[in-house]
């Protein structure tokens, strides 16, 4: 498999705080890599290091097969675009002027494709409006537009949905999917919104205390996430007795609710429960979410 980015025991300290602690990760070409971790886990530090904003204390990384200490690393960086934390745009300029600035920074000979980029991110009609008058969602999309100048094939997005309204989140999601599917751009995306991330990512990396706890593909995760039936009954104790008798795995949630991890033979189960004097109030098929997987991975106490 071809990898866009590989990190090897990447370590970064800020005085006594270990932001990255021997982090290893791999981002396959063409993936949307969801980078998940709580605040202070090291997500943004890793992104800053990859972007060249900061240097690691030890360890290293390969960007398009080139080591970060390689003198030619700038050539690899030219193939990537990034939005780190907040969109990097001049607030006193218009959207088009911001893109022109980036064209100049990259030394592109003409402004060809500028209108297409604005169209791609849905900012084609903003005219001469200054960025300082943009909404947060528009700024976020402009930040992505600036990152897209020079047609990068690796895009890094740090919390792109932060602070956006539901409409803005949907727009950013559609944009990311479009960039990945239509332009074959590999995307590293860090996010706290796990539900949103689960709709996008093809690969996941879970980070805790500066280390990757688990790297998993979307397909593998799908297999791991267990399906269950959530049952609401009048007496959960009776339900437990019946399920034990049937040899089914379950988890009690409350006095009236339990999750059953098996293919439930509905008529057999309801008949057995009726015998115990227990009434079935409701049954729903459920699938374990990325959030519950993340929480179980973190040991149950942490939250994204």
């Amino acid at each position, binding site marked *: 498999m071809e990898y866009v980015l590989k990190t090897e025991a990447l370590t970064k300290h*800020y005085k006594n705080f270990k932001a990255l602690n021997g982090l290893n990760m791999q981002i396959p070409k063409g993936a949307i890599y969801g980078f998940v971790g709580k605040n202070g886990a090291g997500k943004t530090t890793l992104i*800053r290091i990859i*972007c*060249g*904003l*900061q*240097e690691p204390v030890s360890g290293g990384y390969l960007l398009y097969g080139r080591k970060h200490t390689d003198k030619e*690393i*700038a*050539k*690899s*960086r*030219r193939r*990537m*675009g*990034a939005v*780190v*934390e*907040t*969109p*990097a*745009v*001049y*607030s*006193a*300029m218009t959207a088009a*002027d911001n893109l*022109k*600035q*980036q064209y*100049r*920074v*990259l*030394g592109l000979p003409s402004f060809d494709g500028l209108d297409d980029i604005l169209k791609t991110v849905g900012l084609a009609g903003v005219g001469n409006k200054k960025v300082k008058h943009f909404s947060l969602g528009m700024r976020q999309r402009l930040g992505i537009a*600036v*990152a897209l100048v*020079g047609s990068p094939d690796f895009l890094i997005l740090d919390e792109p949905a932060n602070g956006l309204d539901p409409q803005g989140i949907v727009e950013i999601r559609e944009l990311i999917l479009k960039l990945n599917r239509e332009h074959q751009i590999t995307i590293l995306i860090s996010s706290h919104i796990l539900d949103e991330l689960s709709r996008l990512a093809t690969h996941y990396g879970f980070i805790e205390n500066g280390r990757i706890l688990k790297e998993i593909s979307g397909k593998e995760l799908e297999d791991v996430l267990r399906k269950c039936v959530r049952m609401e009954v009048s007496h959960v104790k009776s339900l437990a007795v019946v399920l034990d008798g049937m040899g089914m795995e379950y988890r009690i949630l409350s006095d009236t609710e339990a999750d059953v991890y098996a293919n439930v033979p509905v008529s057999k189960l309801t008949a057995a429960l009726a015998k115990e004097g227990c009434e079935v109030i409701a049954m729903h098929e459920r699938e374990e979410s990325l959030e519950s997987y993340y929480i179980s991975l973190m040991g149950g106490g942490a939250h994204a």
Partner: protein
Amino acid sequence: MRKLVSAHFSRLRKDRMFWICMGAMFAYAVFYIWSGCRKEQFLPGEERSLSACYFHFAIPIGLFCALFDSLFLGTEYSDGTIRNKIVAGHTRTEIYLAALLLTFSAGLLLMAAWTAGTLVAALASGTWNMGMGLLRLFLYLLIAVLEVAVFSALFTWIGMLSENKAVTEMISVLLFLALLLFSSMLYNALSQPETYCGIEMTMDGMRTSEAMQNPRYVGGFLRSVYACMLDVLPAGQGLQLWLLEVGRPVFMLLSSAFITAAATLGGMASFRRKNIK
């Protein structure tokens, strides 16, 4: 680096603060030179000349550089656009040098705005005599250009290391004011006469007393140190240019070149190690 310089200059063309500084410098020159020339009309026997007022710009140029440089470079951090340059694969050395080139060029353009204002004032007052030889004029201008280079190097250093725009602004302006104040103190100390004569009232009327040693006079080795510092400091150079009292032009030029180079090398070394957010 050419790409970064091109991007900086296109931004400069649209930068409101830059045009405000240019306009202020131009208006200041017109007002100052015109009123200066008019004042000279009332001094009998003195030939009217522009040089007496023209080099006044060497004092406020430092303040204008502090204001403009800190705002221009501070925006790179406050808007986060410095990240785009690094992600685009430019080295930190390139980014630093491009910023220095921009601030230095802006300083020279501010000088040009002053000169344009001087021409307008000269036209209005009818004073065309510069009051100094071409070689001396060239030398003075060269000292002023290197003074701008020193200010640019210092304010670029601050602007590239401080990520907070307001802090950058405050440090830059305070540094300029501190340099100006210190230079004025040095100049005042050096201007003290070695001796002074008092006036005594006697029965026969007033008479001057015997010459007495001035306790505020700075002499010996300390005088050399004070003079050297006044020549080295950019604000000190500005003061001497304004008063047309340049004594050691070559030393001033060399010291400016040295400070510019040292500040740039120091700034680049610090910027290379800097963790950017």
